């Protein structure tokens, strides 16, 4: 493992970690392509490894958020239930749906949400 790689990995950690803490999410989208290139692994492994990285980061931020803000725990409960069910459905669908179409829809959703949040 070269020094260059270590340097880049630290950089990725800094970037992904900061976004994870500051925005409460979205770090994975940067992490996947980054470690794919740096560690020279395929896309699927990059996804799996990214989750393994993001989990501890999210754990740390979560604890901080819980201590700093009074969260709506009922909202949290119901959202978490939705996420788990959605996650299972999503991983099943992943194998069946056309990747290109999903990507395009996702990009459109990102743009629409982004604009709406900027305009307010």
């Amino acid at each position: 493992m070269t020094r260059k790689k270590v340097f880049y990995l630290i950089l990725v950690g800094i970037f992904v970690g900061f976004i994870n803490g500051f925005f409460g999410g979205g770090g994975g989208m940067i992490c996947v392509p980054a470690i794919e290139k740096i560690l020279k692994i395929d896309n699927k492994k990059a996804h799996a490894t990214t989750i393994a990285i993001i989990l501890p980061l999210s754990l740390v931020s979560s604890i901080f958020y819980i201590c700093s803000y009074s969260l709506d725990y009922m909202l949290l409960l119901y959202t978490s239930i939705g996420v788990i069910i959605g996650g299972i459905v999503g991983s099943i669908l992943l194998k069946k749906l056309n990747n290109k179409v999903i990507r395009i829809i996702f990009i459109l959703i990102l743009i629409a949400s982004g604009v709406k949040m900027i305009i307010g």
Partner: protein
Amino acid sequence: MKILYQILSGFAGGILGGMGMGGGTILIPILVIFLLVKQKMAQGINLISFLPMSIISIIIHLKNKMIEYKFIWIVIVSGALFSLLGSFLIRYFKNNNLKLYFGIFLILIAIYEIIIFILDIKSKKNNNK
């Protein structure tokens, strides 16, 4: 009814997350735009609600040996430190401003995804020649 919307929001985020596309990037907008949750609260909800699903995913990936262990700890340690820093910094920002920055962040990701998408198509065309 409200409960149903909350579950559906999570469901939408979870589906995208399950497909490997970053569920938080739409869960937060859905919560903020449609359920009128404050930005910081939405961010916190997103962080915590994905934890159980992440744990389940990791267990599955561990079984299939899909996780690259080497040097992963470098990213985790630097990441955790800066994650803490990021979480701390939002104290100095108002919800509305944070929402604006998040919106810009989403646009940046969209642009990035578009570029990747185009590059992908180009490289596939070249491979077919």
